[in-house]
């Protein structure tokens, strides 16, 4: 365990030093969040009854989404890992007495945590200062807040496990770029990044909610805003747990298989 904590700490250290990127990301997300809220506000004012979510729940969704973008964004690939498989540096990782998949997981979790750590607080503060119903409302019961934290943790594992599955696939492909682009598109639409899932048409919405992408930001963000009713929370957490287990098992198996047939070419 200590070994993997070390990877975690290292990635965190490395991630914390990109201050300019954090600043740029933060301002982008502030502007983006504001614009999104203005956009939804226009729709909402024109016909509040046909809105599938409350405006307050939606505002909470958007502010949290922007603050913790580093947790959710499927396009935050850890290119080091993909490159390592592609150019053979993974050879060094294999000469370490560690399990490759667990090490990757520790690194991926730390990468997203370090990126979020530098960005989240200022955005949350701004969100809290914005007046209702367009701000981040903090009136939330302790039990729902705990459920939100659990859902955030599970979501982070699901996102990382999904990306690791793709990294493992790159053992079998000459170039993993195609499948990465596809994954980003699927996660943006089915995960609730483009619009929250309640806004999707019937049919597609159910499909999205059951897919692994629906077990990502969709659940914690809607729990926080109260859009997932209290009695449905256990089922939602169960779905996240299910996808976490399935994706980890698949990724670990694929990594093992990939290593068995891995050929590190050249010099």
């Amino acid at each position: 365990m200590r070994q993997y904590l070390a990877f975690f700490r290292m990635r965190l250290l490395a991630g914390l030093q990109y201050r300019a990127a954090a600043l740029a990301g933060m301002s982008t997300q502030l502007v983006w969040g504001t614009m999104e809220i203005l956009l939804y506000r226009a729709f909402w004012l024109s016909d509040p009854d046909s809105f599938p979510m409350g405006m307050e729940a939606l505002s909470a969704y958007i502010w949290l989404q922007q603050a913790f973008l580093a947790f959710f964004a499927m396009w935050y690939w850890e290119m080091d890992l993909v490159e390592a498989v592609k150019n053979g540096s993974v050879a060094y990782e294999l000469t370490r007495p560690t399990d490759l998949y667990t090490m990757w997981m520790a690194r991926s979790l730390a990468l997203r945590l370090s990126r979020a750590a530098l960005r989240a607080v200022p955005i949350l503060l701004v969100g809290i200062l914005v007046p209702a119903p367009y701000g981040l409302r903090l009136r939330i019961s302790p039990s729902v807040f705990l459920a939100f934290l659990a859902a955030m943790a599970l979501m982070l594992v699901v996102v990382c496990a999904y990306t690791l599955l793709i990294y493992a696939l790159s053992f079998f492909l000459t170039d993993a770029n195609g499948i990465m682009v596809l994954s980003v598109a699927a996660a943006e639409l089915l995960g609730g990044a483009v619009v929250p899932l309640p806004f999707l048409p019937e049919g597609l919405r159910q499909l999205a909610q059951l897919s692994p992408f629906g077990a990502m930001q969709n659940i914690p963000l809607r729990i926080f805003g109260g859009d997932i009713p209290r009695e449905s929370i256990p089922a939602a957490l169960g779905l996240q747990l299910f996808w976490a287990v399935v994706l980890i098992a698949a990724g670990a198996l694929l990594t093992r298989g990939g290593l068995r047939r891995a050929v590190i070419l050249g010099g």
Partner: protein
Amino acid sequence: MIEMKEISKTYRVRRREAGLGSALKRMVSGGWDAVPALQCLSFTIPDGQMVGYIGPNGAGKSTTIKILSGILRPDSGSCIVDDLVPWEDRKAHVARLGVVFGQRSQLWWDVPVMDSYRLLRDIYRVPEERFRENLDRLTELLDLEDLLRTPARMLSLGQRMRCEVAAALLHSPKVLFLDEPTIGLDAVSKLKVRDFIREENRTRGTTVILTTHDMQDVEALCSRVLLIGKGQLLLDGTTEEIRAMAGENLSTEESVADLYRRFGI
């Protein structure tokens, strides 16, 4: 003790002629060629020996190192390093192993070298006291003092290689694989790295396998030379023997080139 017995490994390579026509043809047909990298390779290296492992490009040197490091599994044959089969017991095996791949880096690019070393300390579970001791010794011998606080990306090639060699030794490995460790180094750095490896072997009895194209490395360090070509062991002897086999008055470099020609590799 390293024991390789009748190890064979064949790669599959996708080959085609250049040009659009053959590219289109290969989209439908497979076109995999089998390229034998190692053919029934056997050798034994006792503890504490320094061995130069030489051969022309594509002879199978790196393949051997990868098999010995447990990264690659051979198609057939057996290999035992200190009672362990590298690719079966990878984790236990690599814990006693230090590896330097001259063409790749094990340091984290954007953080100071010392952070990478701390990570290695935790990965190999090196006790703090021994880590300090090793680090102090490495810092002094390889002249790392100012480099430790520098991010790896800001080091020159020679400085980085010294840091790489040190990184491979922080956990006092019993066996050291060096794959072209002096590639691109200036004369001073080269001598430093060589002196250091010799010292490591003398004081700690570390077994060293050195793959290189630099015959001076081999002459300076190795008591024994294994010559490999086309995946087969062609010669097992000392540098003197290699020189004796070739013509009079040739440098080691020239005698090796002469040998390559003579074996037709």
